[in-house]
């Protein structure tokens, strides 16, 4: 079996791992690096639980080959917190109670983060479109939308610094 050396920068930490080229990015992150914040849900590009930010863009890690991420920067849910301080989007999710079972949460956080990086002053519809690729099977969408809206409106700006 072929083994390939790849380099990943995950949450500002450099990793070098040997993988079978068929390894999916979600497998590299969870099974090789032990970062289990990224969830494996449907495995068919549908649910969005495995969303990470790759090279600045939200992608579904169940549907990207890890070799294709060689040399790239990856942000996962674990990387949102900085120096013991929660990221604004994490604070907002807590304040709004934007989880029920919590399985979709890390993917939602990553889609929300990518969306907020790309979109200034979003409308509610834009927020809903921004998380179109993430399914919350508890259907707790309203509180998630409220949390993203609160961050977009600058409610957590101070917490950022």
């Amino acid at each position, binding site marked *: 079996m072929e083994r390939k050396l790849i380099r990943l920068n995950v949450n500002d930490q450099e990793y070098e791992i040997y993988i079978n080229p068929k390894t999916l990015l979600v497998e590299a992150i969870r099974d090789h690096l032990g970062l289990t914040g990224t969830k494996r849900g449907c495995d068919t590009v549908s649910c969005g639980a495995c969303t990470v930010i790759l090279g600045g863009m939200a992608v579904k890690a169940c549907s990207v080959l890890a070799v294709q991420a060689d040399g790239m920067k990856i942000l996962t849910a674990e990387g949102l917190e900085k120096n013991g301080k929660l990221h604004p989007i994490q604070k907002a999710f807590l304040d709004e109670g934007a989880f029920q079972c919590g399985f979709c949460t890390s993917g939602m956080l990553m889609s929300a983060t990518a969306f907020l990086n790309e979109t200034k002053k979003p409308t509610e519809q834009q927020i809903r479109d921004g998380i179109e*690729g993430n399914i919350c099977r508890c259907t707790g969408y309203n509180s998630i939308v409220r949390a993203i809206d609160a961050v977009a409106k600058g409610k957590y700006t101070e917490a950022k610094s």
Partner: protein
Amino acid sequence: MISDFTYLKPGSVKEALQMLAQHQDECKIICGGQSLLIILRQGLVTPENVIDIKGLDKLNYITYDAKGGLKMGATTTHRAIEKSKVIKEKYPVLVEMEEKLASIQVRNWGTIGGNLAHADAAGDPAPVLTAMGGSVKLGSASGERTIPLDGFYTDLFETAMNKDEMILEVQVPPRPARSATKYQKFNLLESDQGIVAVAATVTLKADGSCQSARIVLGNAAATTMRAKEAEKVLIGSKLSDAVFEKAGAAAAAECEPVADIHASEDYRRHLVRILTKRMAKAAWEQAKISG
């Protein structure tokens, strides 16, 4: 479970085409992989070699000029098309189509070349690009050729590409005066594939009658298909609701839908009739006000 494969990463288009010439039957090309990884996982394809062209930035471009029209490199992502200012200005229907193609994550990584090569009859870009008279430029180690998307799809998940060829570029001619294209898919979730989809282009003569028309159906046959009988109804006519109704009936009669978990054959025909009528009318209304 994905079967083991040898991973090949060409450093140039030329190298990719050489690898393709060498492996032909024993390889698959991966770009974004948003479709390929699903069928790899299902074990529907078990290539010995996977050639990764995602990193070929030479094929990642969008250009437009009034004479040659739109050219998009094969590795251009859906998201780049969705966000392109020139496409929004010149071919707004492409942007509208992309905004409803799967999800943001898929559009960020998936590519136009990969989508078209995957040849899923339920894919969104093929009907729209075919309705606009689009073509694909194919490359192989022995040369290049450009063929229209109309005729590119030969059967279920089959294309007219030879085993040593891959898509290099997608081309769309400049939009003629008094011409417009509209697209709609019918689905339950906005970002799903269409249960059926219809793209319609209507081009008008100066006197307002229909000079040319294209009706292209998605997921209403084994391949993306042109509804040529419906087109005949439109071409040369003074367009009216009665004509659109007749075109819808023609498309419903000539399509070849297959029943599945989402819809019966009859229901698909019904949807084709309604969407053809609506899209032809919508294209007509847009064409009337398009310079």
